[in-house]
């Protein structure tokens, strides 16, 4: 048995997930721990109130907010990241420019977020707004979009571009019909690497975002920390885990 270590490590985490699943079907009670045991008087005691509550407007709205923030952020970050990566490949010293753009990304995310909060103080309309969330998330996720795009753009076969030029294609047409399709692998990697974490983002929207925009992650946080409804938090977490597993399985197949 040579694989006991990773088995133990992954197994420990899977056990944690199993406990989340178990908690999500328990009943919330006012005690410590605030859940009912799985077995009461020799009978299995399960409730599905939490899963039904998921369909309430509160969580559906939050799901909508989450998807909106995630998709808008992914769109902005990947498009700008791709354009920046393209600009970098056009310069004479690409590595220098890449470092210059990525240096602020080495700063821990909380510091970066904090630094941006200081900037938002100068513009009143940006304090606690969705715009602020997008700016900070863009600053945080840019490397995840820029690096894969740059990797595939720098590997692009220049003969393709030259051939298109010889055929008389315009610069814009070359970009759309030759460069973008040939670097789509980098683009899909960038999309995945930005979308997944931004859907589960908690700290940035709660610090700089609009108070009415509630991410699913903040609901888990709130249910656990402020309200103390563990089963509800577990049900939300279970959904999040399921979504992650589905995406990973789908990503592995392609």
């Amino acid at each position, binding site marked *: 048995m*040579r694989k006991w*270590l990773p088995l133990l490590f992954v197994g420990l985490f899977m*056990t944690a997930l199993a406990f989340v699943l178990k908690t999500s079907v328990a009943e919330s009670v006012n005690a410590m721990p605030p859940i009912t045991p799985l077995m009461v008087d020799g009978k299995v005691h399960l409730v599905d109130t939490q899963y039904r509550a998921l369909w309430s407007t509160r969580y559906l709205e939050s799901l909508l907010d989450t998807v909106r923030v995630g998709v808008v952020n992914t769109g902005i970050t990947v498009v700008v990241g791709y354009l*920046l990566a393209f600009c970098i490949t056009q*310069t004479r010293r690409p590595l220098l420019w890449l470092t210059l753009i990525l240096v602020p990304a080495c700063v*821990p995310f909380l*510091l970066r977020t904090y*630094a941006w909060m200081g900037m938002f103080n100068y513009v009143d309309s940006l304090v606690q707004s969705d715009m602020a969330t997008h700016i900070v998330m863009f600053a945080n996720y840019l490397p995840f979009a820029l690096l894969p795009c740059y990797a595939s753009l720098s590997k692009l076969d220049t003969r393709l571009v030259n051939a298109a030029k010889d055929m008389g294609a315009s610069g814009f047409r070359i970009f759309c019909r030759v460069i973008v399709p040939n670097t789509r692998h980098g683009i899909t990697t960038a999309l995945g690497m930005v979308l997944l974490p931004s859907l589960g983002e908690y700290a940035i929207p709660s610090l700089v975002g609009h108070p009415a925009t509630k991410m699913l*992650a903040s609901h888990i946080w709130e249910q656990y920390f402020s309200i103390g409804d563990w089963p509800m938090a577990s049900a939300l977490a279970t959904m999040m885990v399921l979504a992650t597993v589905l995406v990973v399985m789908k990503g592995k197949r392609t």
Partner: protein
Amino acid sequence: MKKSEILLTMVAMAMILPMMNMIIMSFTAGQSVYVMEGFSFRHYLDLFQNTDAQHAITLSLQLLALTVVGGTLLGTCCAFALKAGGWGTKTLLGGLLVMLTMPEVATGFSLTMLFNQLNIDNGLMTMWMGQLVTVTPFVTFLVYAKLKEMPPSLVMAAQDMGVSPLRTLCHVVLPFIRPSVVSGALLSAALSIDDFVVSSMLSGPESTNLPQFIYNSVRLGVTPEINALATCMLILITIIAVIAAKRHQRP
């Protein structure tokens, strides 16, 4: 200067501007974070007398050391075990990939439930476990990729020469995978010092690490003292990054 270079300069400036603002504003003499009211180090002095901040820094450094050592060791060992292949390797890799992509809130919450069921009180120990769970998959994938690149002839040659397995490991395999292990360790350090979500879910009443301390202060607004703390951290990180880059260039 070309058009693309102008655009890149603008973006780079926009990214650095907030940090410049933060550094400059940390030297203000007043309490306002909008207007510079003279130059002084008083917020730095305040910071050095703030015991909460000191506790937070101590805890963060302890966690950093524990996580870098533990995560790198565990990740490397896992990579070796998985490299052997065979039964269940794909499942385990999939499990690690799920751990890697899982939103931090979900990871932290699951571990909280686990420790609660096992009756383990939150504290340094649980925070360390949480950070290991976030960090180890990164190290494992980095080292695993490098191990797969290693030509089998290297080990075979050593074996043919009659070198013992331990010496083969130390003098052939480890030097080959060293770059990946080092990047894994650096990545764990970056993730550990930055870890807010998982740590807060797993921290006890007595344990507040630096990101939590910053978060709690920031929720009440930007202050010159936090500007000073952030500037200190920024300088420390820059020094580490420069050393890492220099070491990286040498060979």
